């Protein structure tokens, strides 16, 4: 059915909100180590596509296979699969009533059965990597946007996910803070982390993406490796879009 290499396979994915069809049959394949960058005009359904991958949005049709398991099957325990699919949000969504360290350790401790010491050790290592070890005891309200998003990324990493989903991770940031977040994401990609990134950062897509996807009006219109995608766009709607954003 699938090769071992495919981590996520999306098959005819549909999503409607009431009478509005947002996704009209999306097919995609994400291999291990891929960095799929999803771009498209606002309202095109790209965020919905991403949020369907871990069923934060309940798909109305089609199938999503994660490690070969159809996670759209209602008998599947989606919570177990979500542990392996980290997510980073536009609005960070750190837990404001917990310290940075607690934000990062609550998942591993409650869900993976790690001891407090184990979880904190791993969290501190990750904080060190993103240069925020000194903020471990701070509360989210004491952090800048860029710091919050870096914490959100390492919070997701604490669960040892097989894939990270990014939903416009830099869109809510002040311009001078975008760089520090993209830097962390580039590092991760270099280390072979599988990522699906919805973004408007074309520079990031060109540099880091292995597979660029253009979604418009609920379907994938074009999909290609970055060189081809940006140098030689075939679809007129994509050409129009790129001429506006580049």
């Amino acid at each position: 059915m699938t090769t071992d290499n495919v981590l996520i396979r999306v098959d005819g994915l549909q999503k409607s909100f009431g009478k509005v069809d947002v996704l009209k049959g999306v097919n995609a394949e994400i291999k291990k180590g891929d960095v799929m960058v999803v771009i498209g005009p606002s309202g095109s359904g790209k965020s919905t596509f991403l949020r369907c991958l871990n069923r934060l949005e309940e798909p109305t049709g089609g199938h999503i296979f994660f490690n070969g398991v159809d996670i759209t099957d209602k008998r599947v325990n989606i919570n177990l699969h979500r542990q392996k699919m980290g997510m980073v949000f536009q609005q960070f969504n750190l837990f404001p009533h917990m310290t940075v360290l607690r934000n990062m350790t609550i998942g591993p401790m409650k869900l993976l059965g790690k001891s407090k010491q184990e979880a904190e050790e791993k969290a501190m290592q990750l904080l060190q990597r993103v240069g925020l070890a000194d903020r471990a005891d701070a509360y989210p309200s004491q952090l800048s946007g860029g710091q919050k998003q870096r914490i959100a990324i390492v919070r997701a990493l604490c669960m040892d996910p097989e894939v990270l989903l990014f939903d416009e991770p830099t869109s809510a940031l002040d311009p001078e803070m975008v760089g520090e977040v993209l830097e962390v994401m580039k590092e991760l990609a270099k280390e072979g982390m599988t990522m699906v990134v919805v973004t408007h950062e074309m520079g990031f897509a060109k540099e880091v993406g292995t597979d660029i996807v253009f979604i418009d009006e609920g379907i994938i219109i074009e999909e290609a490796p970055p060189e081809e995608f940006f140098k030689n766009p075939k679809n007129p709607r994509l050409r129009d879009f790129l001429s506006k954003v580049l």
Partner: protein
Amino acid sequence: MKEWFLEQKEQFILNFIEDDRWEFLVQGFFNTILLTILSAVIGVVLGILVAAVRTTYDNNYETFKKNGGFGFYLMAVINWICKLYLTVIRGTPVVVQLLIMYFIVFATSDNGIMVATIAFGINSGAYVAEIFRGGIMSIDKGQLEAGRSIGFNYVQTMIFIILPQTIKNTLPTLLNEFIALLKETSVAGYVGIMDLTKAGNNIRNQTYSAFMPLIAIALVYLVLVVVLTWLVGKLERRLRKSDH
């Protein structure tokens, strides 16, 4: 001036010292406290349950519907019962509810304190439920999504992420409800309980003097509310240490 003082002293002795009338106030004081604490506990437990049902139903309507079957209908029925409870309790006066409990539902019981506790608890639960529901709904949807995306199920997300934030945010409104509850117990006299109000009124009946006993119980209520407010204020400051 001296005469006025002497008269007040006489009044004081008549109302509180003579025949050990102060004992009414002591008994009333403890009954009022007992009624308030016990019914607040019932109210909070009921309120959490009802708010949990209502928000779970609203938040997961699509999932319930998709999974369908018995679970969906069960949730729909429980949700409907909760809505009915809120409507009836908030739509009728607490005195009427107390009388119905005492003279109809528990007609065979002569334990007034127990019946009144249940009546006030059920009444308070309806208001507490709506306070909690409002508090839960006021938490950004992203918090629920972040919790779920880590792999927590709905209940875990509620317990670890949403409710701790809700309690902090709802504390002032909750305090308001407890203050209202404390003062509402003053109708307990309708079913023969010697609460603080009834105690003051008893003294007035015996001495035919209104000023001293009524002002005295008013002051006791006031002091109770001030102390309660101070305690909750302290708690609130402790919980607020995460926002700067």
